[in-house]
């Protein structure tokens, strides 16, 4: 087999231009495949973070309006469903912020500070000030801040429909990427909202984050089973955003199909070029067989060639991908100069794609190798 590798290497070295064309062909295929994959998952993350990420993935409501035994349900769900990342009691209410002559309606959301971070990664979204730590503090969205001209350390007065008042101190401002949320949400400590609306220790809902956001509907069903109580109603973001969810699933499938066909095109080009290469090397293979090279070794030459081409092509393809990402981040930008889609370099995806690409390239040698295996030296010698 060592001689096969040596011959394969010499064959490639001898036809430099042909080798370069195949390597370029593989590189373009690999780079497009990996780039599309990364772009698609970047797009997914961007959309999920900006839209779906800001609505709870799975929410448990009570038909009675409030949940008394929320800590039992929370513990049960986390214990029995391994795909649940976090579960948190939430108290929601509609209130007004009173400022001089105007009343601004807002949604006050009460969370325990550590919960809001595990559900919405709020710490990463705070661009000014810090996260609230105690009761009496609040964080406010970017758009609401602008609208009401608020500053860090300001006190705001919140009124319920019934006229009950709560004064809170602004600890920070967040940007969750959606103007609707940034202009409506006021997030504070759970107990403050419970006191304000007179809910005691109850919660209005339990919000749950799951590991695979695309399976939120299945997880929702599983959680319904775990709770197994008809007085509770379990909803998920996919049902709440049906068009968006189906659009994203469709986009994901399209991406996989595109990746598959790009790779297939690259593999077909290797098959055809290596097929030509076998015909070109007919004489050499024939004479090697006359000299006693075994059929298996004669076939192996083409697998080694394809493997070398696969490695070179994939390496160059990765370089191309890097260039595309650089170019994309530099030229495909929004009005603020930020990249339109935040491409995340997923090393695992790149590694798996590279392994698949190299394997597919090597596999492409199957037909040429078979031709080489079957070649009868007499044909070559007879026909010159």
């Amino acid at each position: 087999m060592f001689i096969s590798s040596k011959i394969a290497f010499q064959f490639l070295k001898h036809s430099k231009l042909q080798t370069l064309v195949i390597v370029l062909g593989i590189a373009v295929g690999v780079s497009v495949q990996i780039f599309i994959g990364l772009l698609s998952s970047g797009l997914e993350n961007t959309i999920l973070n900006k839209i779906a990420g800001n609505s709870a993935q799975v929410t448990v409501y009570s038909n009675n309006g409030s949940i008394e035994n929320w800590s039992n349900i929370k513990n049960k769900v986390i214990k029995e469903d391994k795909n649940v990342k976090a579960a948190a009691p939430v108290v929601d209410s509609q209130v007004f912020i009173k400022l001089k002559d105007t009343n601004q309606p807002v949604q006050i959301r009460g969370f325990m500070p550590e919960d809001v971070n595990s559900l919405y990664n709020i710490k990463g979204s705070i661009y000014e000030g810090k996260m609230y730590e105690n009761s009496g503090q609040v964080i406010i969205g970017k758009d609401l801040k602008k609208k009401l001209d608020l500053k860090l350390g300001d006190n705001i007065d919140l009124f319920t429909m019934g006229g009950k008042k709560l004064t809170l101190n602004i600890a920070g401002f967040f940007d969750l990427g959606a103007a609707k949320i940034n202009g409506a949400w006021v997030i504070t400590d759970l107990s403050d909202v419970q006191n304000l609306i007179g809910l005691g220790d109850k919660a209005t809902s339990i919000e749950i984050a799951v590991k695979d956001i695309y399976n939120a509907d299945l997880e929702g069903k599983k959680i319904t089973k775990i709770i197994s109580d008809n007085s509770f109603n379990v909803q998920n973001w996919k049902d709440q955003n049906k068009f968006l969810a189906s659009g994203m699933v469709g986009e994901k499938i399209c991406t996989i199909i595109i990746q598959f066909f790009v790779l297939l095109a690259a593999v077909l080009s290797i098959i055809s070029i290596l097929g030509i290469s076998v015909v070109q090397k007919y004489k050499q293979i024939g004479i090697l067989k006359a000299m006693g090279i075994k059929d298996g070794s004669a076939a192996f030459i083409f697998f080694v060639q394809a493997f070398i081409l696969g490695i070179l092509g994939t390496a160059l393809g990765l370089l191309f991908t890097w260039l595309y990402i650089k170019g994309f981040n530099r030229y495909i930008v929004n009005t603020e100069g930020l990249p339109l889609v935040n491409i995340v370099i997923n090393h695992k995806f790149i590694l798996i794609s590279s392994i698949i690409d190299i394997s597919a390239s090597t596999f492409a040698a199957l037909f040429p190798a078979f031709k080489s295996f079957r070649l009868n030296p007499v044909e070559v010698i007879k026909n010159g």
Partner: protein
Amino acid sequence: MDNIIQLKNVNKIYGRRVKNKVLSEVNISIEKGSFNSIIGASGSGKTTLLNIMGMLDKPTTGEVYIQGKSIKSMGRNSRAVVRNRSIGFVFQFHYLLPEFNTIQNVLMPYRINHFFCSRRAKKKAEELLELVGLSGCKKKKVYDLSGGQQQRIAIARALMNEPRIVLADEPTGNLDSTNAESIYKLFRQINDKFETTFIIVTHDVSIANKTDRIIRIKDGQVQD
């Protein structure tokens, strides 16, 4: 003397629908260390006979014995091993591998069967290049050599594994008379020195007349 090659009632038919009998009832024995030529008109079956002797082709019927062993039951791989170790081929067209330089071409039969290329093998290849008078062309590309030189390299390559048999198919067919003569002399020298059995297919009667035995073939039949 022992027979190194023996053909018994060998027939070779090409084609499935239109049958073309190329060899008919060939019975022939080649003695160990002998220097033979096969002559005959174009299409008489000389090359087919040589290919069968060299295990490149199989007879349709009949038996072939190489070094006393029947090749009938041998698989493709076993035949490849015997070809590699016991038979050296020299063709009309040199069939050197253009991807490799001169010495690498000479070493090729050895490399096919060995994982590493030993120092001894390299020395042997250099000695063979010296024998064919081309010790100065070790690193040269094969297409930079003349036709005569290329044929000499092909001869050196055929001798690399010290085969007991050398089969040459029109080895001088592409060369001028001076080069043809020197190739013949080289074959003779090798035959004397290593007792290698030679079977040379040729059109050239003057070359054939110099061999110890002339095998004439006409319409697929041997007229010894």
